[in-house]
């Protein structure tokens, strides 16, 4: 019987039913969200994730139950809220996706390329193992305070790097993250844009990813969110769990520190 079940269920109830809306919405979709209520299909994906965590897989046919997410082997509850963080075995700062890739390759013997190739659902697919794992792991931090580790020098330099990446303008459109996420109360078309340089904006955004996206019918991770934003900035493809992705997530989580996790969220 999975140890985390009951605490998971409690966290699920708290997480899914603390409805979260990006604070900067100017009410355009309040009626829509109110009618949507809080019945979040992510609940199914969370159960999948838990099952996958305990199922032996990969060439070594080993489960992820001994994977260390930063709080000790197999400790899942509360782990997501303290990421990204430095891992001495990997010698680098990792987000949840880089950390899962590390466990999948070292514990299960899978090849990194294969893990990365199947990380995110392609069009028409209905959720990958990684997306389900991240949904469950994030749910296990639901309601807990966002507290990314910043004690290690590399964790602090990840934050500084994240900030410089946040303002890095390049590509045919000269876009950077700041183009859209540096001001409060702005939007692209009807899409509210959180100001990620502020505590409130960063907390509202960081706490609600991963999220069930109604437009795709699946749970999407923060890593995917970074990649897809870069795509729309007209940049090349961001590698899952890469240094740039982790640094940007560190910038977000530190800016949002003190907020409370409420993932998986329910989003467009």
């Amino acid at each position, binding site marked *: 019987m999975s140890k985390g079940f009951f605490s998971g269920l409690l966290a699920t109830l708290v997480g899914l039913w603390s409805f979260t809306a990006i604070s900067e919405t100017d009410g355009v979709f309040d009626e829509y969200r109110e009618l949507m209520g809080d019945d979040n*299909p992510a609940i199914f994906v969370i159960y999948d994730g838990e099952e996958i965590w305990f199922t032996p897989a990969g060439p070594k046919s080993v489960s992820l139950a001994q994977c260390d997410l930063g709080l000790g082997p197999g400790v899942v509850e509360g782990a997501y809220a303290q990421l990204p963080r430095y891992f001495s075995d990997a010698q680098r700062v990792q987000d949840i996706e880089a950390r899962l890739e590390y466990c999948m390759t070292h514990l299960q013997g899978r090849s990194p390329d294969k893990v990365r190739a199947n990380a995110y659902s392609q069009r028409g*697919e209905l959720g990958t193992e990684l997306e389900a794992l991240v949904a469950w792991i994030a749910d296990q931090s639901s309601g807990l305070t966002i507290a990314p580790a910043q004690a290690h020098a590399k964790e602090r330099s990840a934050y500084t790097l994240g900030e410089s990446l946040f303002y890095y303008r390049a590509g045919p459109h000269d876009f950077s993250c700041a183009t859209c996420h540096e001001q409060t109360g702005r939007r692209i078309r009807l899409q509210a844009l959180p100001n990620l340089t502020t505590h409130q904006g960063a907390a509202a955004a960081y706490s609600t990813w991963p999220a069930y996206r109604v437009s795709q019918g699946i749970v999407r991770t923060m890593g995917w969110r970074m990649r897809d934003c870069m795509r729309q900035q007209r940049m090349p493809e961001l590698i899952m769990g890469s240094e740039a992705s982790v640094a940007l997530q560190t910038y977000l989580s530190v800016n949002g520190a003190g907020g409370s996790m409420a993932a998986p969220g329910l989003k467009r």
Partner: protein
Amino acid sequence: MASRIRIRAQLKDDYCEVKALMRHPMETGLRKDQSGAAIPANFIEDVQVVHNDAVVMQAYWGAAVSANPFLGVRFKGGAQGDVVKIIWRDNQGDSGSGETTIR
């Protein structure tokens, strides 16, 4: 195989409110996958809500019902502890069911 239906049954002043989420892609047959091939139509056609073996709602759905469909139903005469069961069948002959007790 994780659960494919979540049901909540709550007694309100003079009716029992049932809320359910079903895990189903509800494919219209018009969507294409990454390689450009059409994804075949696959959607729930029938849903039955049963209270103590009596049907309190019979729904027929088309492909326009959203993915991972939600259903809200209200019926009279439910008591705490009664069993509410939901069964769905889709156009490919697959089916799913689940039940809960009224709170």
